[in-house]
């Protein structure tokens, strides 16, 4: 991500400011940018949310469909999380198949939801081994300014919270649609909080510039009982066990704050 001198100067500047306990944009180290969540703003998907986190802007659509279950869980629905880095979102993002970062983003959001058992997959079965309801969660990045995991994770939870899935009836193995819909019931409300390490300091909600110069990153996803559901460390740096502990503590506090905003939006 670095291109030599420019990047090193930027790094130096950001690191120096962070050492003073502040950020380039005036925030405290552990302060999020303004978080706006709007739900139910799309008509085609079963659930939707628009999240603006500073200048990061994502749209999450939840759509259902009918598909085939996995071999080892013939009676369970299938959730698929997919992230799309649209080329409008950043000058360096190009049309084409998702880059590795988009794959990681989708998988980290997916893992948080799955680990927390947000959906009752067994309620989404239709014909054993043949047909189940699919729940697609599409993370659509409209403008990129860092911290996509937290923005998308909040957006996915908000969109799922507002989703109303079509109800089907099964008669002798044949699936037919009723005209009714049913609110998707969520069993947990996991929130991802990502900390970024720059020098020896940790910050939350990093901007694109901060991510560009960061040493490493750790995402901790927690549910409303303060249980940890998922962790993802990335970046070419190590953390001590103490640092990990510290990050879990910070994440645990921040998750409460973000969850409140998500739940207020639905």
């Amino acid at each position, binding site marked *: 991500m670095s291109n030599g001198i420019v990047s090193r100067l930027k790094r130096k500047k950001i690191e120096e400011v962070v050492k003073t306990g502040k950020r380039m944009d005036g925030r405290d180290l552990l302060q999020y940018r303004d978080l706006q969540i709007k739900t139910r703003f*799309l008509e085609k998907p079963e659930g*939707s949310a628009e999240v603006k986190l500073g200048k990061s802007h994502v749209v999450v659509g939840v759509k259902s469909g009918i598909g085939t279950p996995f071999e080892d869980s013939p009676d369970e629905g299938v959730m698929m999380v997919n992230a*799309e880095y649209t080329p*409008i979102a950043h000058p360096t993002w190009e*049309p084409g198949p998702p880059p590795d970062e988009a794959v990681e983003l989708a998988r980290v959001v997916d893992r948080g939801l799955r680990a927390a058992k947000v959906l009752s997959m067994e309620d989404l079965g239709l014909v054993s081994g043949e047909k189940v309801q699919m729940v*697609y969660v*599409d993370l*659509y990045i*409209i403008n990129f300014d860092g911290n996509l995991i937290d923005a998308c994770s909040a957006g996915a939870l908000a969109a799922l919270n507002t989703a109303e899935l079509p109800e089907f009836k099964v008669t002798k193995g044949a699936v037919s649609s009723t005209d009714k819909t049913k609110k998707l019931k969520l069993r947990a409300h996991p929130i991802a909080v990502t900390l970024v390490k720059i020098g020896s300091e940790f910050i939350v909600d990093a901007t694109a510039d901060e991510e560009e110069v960061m040493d490493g990153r750790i995402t901790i996803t927690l549910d409303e009982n303060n249980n940890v559901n998922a962790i993802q460390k990335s970046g070419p740096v190590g953390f001590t066990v103490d640092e990990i502990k510290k990050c879990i503590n910070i994440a645990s506090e921040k998750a409460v704050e973000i969850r409140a905003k998500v739940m207020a939006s639905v």
Partner: protein
Amino acid sequence: MSKQRKRKPAKTWERIDGRKHDELRPIHIESGVLPNADGSAYIEMGRNKIIAGVYGPREMHPKRLSKPNMGVLRCRYHMAPFSVDPRRSPAPSRRDTEISMVMRDCLEPALFLERYPRSVIDVFVEIIQADGGTRCASINAAAVALADAGIPMKDLVSACAAGKYEGRLILDLGDYEDKKGESDMPVAYMPKFEQVTLLQMEGIMTREETEECVRLAVDGCKKIYEIQKEALKKKYAAVREEAGQVAAEAEFEPEPEPEPEEAEEPTTEDEPTEDEEQ
């Protein structure tokens, strides 16, 4: 449903959403919506929700696609998986490829590409929600985004479909009219030059209907043109201050080649009056 449809034309025919035959759906355009893009616009046209982002002029990668004597305009029309029902794959379809091509052809006449040798201007359009007429709505947003990027333009490009539904020519088809109607004709237009820069059509119409349909669509484009300019007003003001009144005006002067006088006549008589009365 079919009963209703049969009865309706009898006396007080009206469109499924109550519009008149030559009435546009509600349109809302906003420019400068994307912090990262050089230019951008958001459009709601009926239930379409579309964002256009412009990057460039900038260096082209891969270089072999660039042209030594002029810039290249690249367009990409893309639908979000959740923009339609049922969900679609994010991989581009053949339809997307074609629309991207016709969008490029329809926007290019408005630009001075000869000023940007070896460069590219990228116009990316993301359909967040699709109603009928996504390509026209996309063009409207793209034109505003290009202007928002400060890229000099000969004129804006305005787009609107017309078509035939239950035997009548109508303007700006909604999704249902698009799918169930007899024909659909998306049109883009540069009002200053009276030039149609996008024209597609599919369906069954007599030659007379076809010609009338073009005129109806062009009229729609002219209305949209005003809405686009409105959305750009603040931006224009800023540009004028920066670049000086003269330069800004000069850029919107018609080029010598197209001759607006010739085309004047059909455009003035293009009210489909007989339809309007029903």
